[in-house]
């Protein structure tokens, strides 16, 4: 099995593992942020470029460094490979550039966005962004559209990560959801302005890293940090029935898939569980959800994030560990 060293930590991984996956196996302190890769999808990644790292040694057989930064989610490890992520000033600078591009046309309407508090772009911006934008032109906007009766698409916030497209490809039979147009004016849309009538379509809401795809049954009901997540299950014929209920007082405001420590769903859930089962009596409650320090809803997240930016400190720690 190939061995790879990421930010000074060596790990042995199965052949075919990507740098990002290997980094996640080591742990949060070396794992690059990923806005488009999604572990539950057969195809994903490569688009956003936030996960870029430097390969300073290609492999034991070919020790040359790779000339350009590589997308860690799409690059397989080789035996003897050495990768720099948080320990490279250059990587951090490059990533900062990518984050600036991702935020360039983003409306930053967090105060009125349902995703605020559990938005990957918010986290990314906090950890890698600049304080002020250098972009002083008008930002692009789109009209909101409905994708079926329960899902709303607000393209203005989309970062074109393609996750929802690949999710629709993977989970639905007929592909009616995809990308229209080109370049800066590309947009996610339904090819046929018809309802997406599919039992699993609601999962696109969970995979969307930003507030572009939102749950119409939850819109504007509450800020997520005022709701309490609880893991629950029910006997469902269409999906595994393992969900997360979001309570405000006694009321279930929304149902989502359970997410892992990387903010990615563990099991897909069906639309019935998501949209139509909002009574406590529908569910067997397992207990409060453990939310990993992934998002704003978890306290002190930003204190931790600051540490990450301090590369000198990071390096020192790694050396001490050795």
């Amino acid at each position, binding site marked *: 099995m190939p061995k790879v060293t990421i930010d000074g930590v060596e790990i042995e991984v199965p052949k075919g593992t990507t740098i990002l996956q290997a980094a996640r196996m080591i742990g949060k302190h070396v794992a690059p942020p990923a806005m488009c890769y999604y572990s539950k999808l057969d195809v994903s990644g490569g688009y956003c470029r936030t996960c870029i790292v430097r390969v300073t040694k290609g492999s034991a057989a070919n020790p040359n460094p790779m000339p350009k930064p590589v997308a860690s989610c799409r690059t397989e490890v080789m035996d003897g490979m050495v990768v720099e992520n948080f320990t490279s000033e250059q990587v951090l600078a490059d990533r900062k550039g990518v984050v600036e*591009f991702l935020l360039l046309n983003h409306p930053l309407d967090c105060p009125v966005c349902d995703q605020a508090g559990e938005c990957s772009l918010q986290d990314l911006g906090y950890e890698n962004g600049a304080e002020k934008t250098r972009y002083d032109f008008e930002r692009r906007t789109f009209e909101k559209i409905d994708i079926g009766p329960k899902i709303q698409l607000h393209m203005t916030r989309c970062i074109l990560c393609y996750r929802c497209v690949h999710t629709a490809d993977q989970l639905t039979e007929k592909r009616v959801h995809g990308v229209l147009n080109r*370049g800066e004016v590309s947009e996610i849309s339904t090819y046929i302005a018809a309802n997406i009538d599919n039992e699993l379509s609601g999962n696109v809401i969970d995979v969307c890293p930003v507030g572009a795809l939102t749950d119409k049954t939850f819109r504007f009901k509450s800020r997520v940090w005022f709701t309490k997540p609880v893991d629950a299950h029910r006997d469902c014929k269409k999906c595994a029935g393992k969900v997360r209920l979001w309570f405000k007082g006694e009321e279930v405001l929304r149902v989502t898939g359970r997410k892992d420590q990387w903010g990615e769903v563990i099991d897909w859930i069906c639309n019935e569980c998501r949209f139509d089962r909002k009574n406590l009596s529908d569910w067997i409650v397992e207990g409060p959800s453990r939310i990993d320090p992934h998002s704003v809803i978890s306290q002190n997240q930003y204190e931790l994030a600051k540490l990450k930016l301090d590369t000198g400190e990071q390096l020192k720690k790694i050396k001490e560990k050795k």
Partner: protein
Amino acid sequence: MGKQLLLENINVPGIETLSVYRANGGYKALEKALKMQQSEVVDEVKKSGLRGRGGAGFPTGMKWGFIAKPEGVPRHLVCNADESEPGTFKDRYLMQHNPHLLIEGMILSSYALGANTSYIYIRGELLYVYHILEKAIQAAYDAGFLGDNILGSGFNLNLYCHLGAGAYICGEETALIESLEGKRGNPRIKPPFPAVSGVWGRPTVVNNVETIAATVPIINMGGEEYAKIGVGKSTGTKLISACGHINNPGVYEIELGLSCEEFLFDDKYCGGIKNGKKFKAVVAGGSSVPILPADLFLKTAKGEPRLMSYESLSDGGFISGTMLGSGGFIVLDETASIVKNLWNFTRFYHHESCGQCSPCREGTGWMEKILNRILEGKGKQTDIDLLFDIQSKIDGKTICPLGEAAAWPVASAIRHFRKEFEEYVNKPEEIVDVKHYYAVNNLQQSAK
């Protein structure tokens, strides 16, 4: 003039017909190749030192050698005829006037690769050339050069011509493959490379029109003879499409290694700068390559005369050199505005970005907006550094080289002509071009 291997018969009346093409020695290379082993044909191409003429200059024989050969899986050869790079119009010229040269090259190259179905992916706007090719392909079928058991050799080949739909990005080989498969023309994320998994997941070679056409003289004269033309690793001849402020715009076939000065000023080629004006700058290999000021084009930073070859043009790296690229040669005289020229290129890349990856999707638009502002006379001093910084954040961080193609012109224009940008920013009222800008921009607005 040096040796004319590709353009030799271009002006022969009726050369687009099979009979005239044959009367001028056409399909001899195919006959010869079909009597050789497939690997021998590959070896001849390897010996010739031929490098891809589509822009990157990758050794063709080596590329052919990489093609995977799993048992029972068909392989494909795809000809990249999507030529859309601003300044490049050599492939069109060749196909339009001498279609059988490409078709002969396609057949013998397919034979070498063991491909039984091959494609020519042609730019959508070249509809009339498509019709010329279709006609020539039909004639080749009728004469037994295509179809089953070609010339009794037992080799079968079907050749299809496929029209693009007007996207520059479909010239990038993996976007081309997607488009050929009937999908949205987004470049694929590599690896896997087409040699392993290309069209429909099968091993595929994508080559430029000129690359494939060049295999015909290579087989006719032998790889070693071909390699004697040129200098060093730049062997053979290259088509250059010359345009801009020169006396003789057009397509020229040069022997690689010709001096840049001779190419630009000799009457056999560009014939010098038009209207007795002074030579200011050149974009030597299509809009993507770094622009060079006159002095650095004629002589390298070391003071050696620069040659039209892969190595010499890139001497000095991007600090003082450029690239041979696809051979689109754009000359600017003293009246040309570097800033306006750059704006035009940047506008193009912004328009053509497929939008998959964030640096290119967002960065190209941002750069265009800043250049717009500078041309409008509303630029700020900080805009120049900002532009340079944006391009550096695109360069090397994208899925396909279109990002770099958008970044390099910006970097080089600022590197070599910073003064002009400063003039625009500091004294906009003195720049005549600002008025021109409004004219162009109003035109654009009314077109919306």
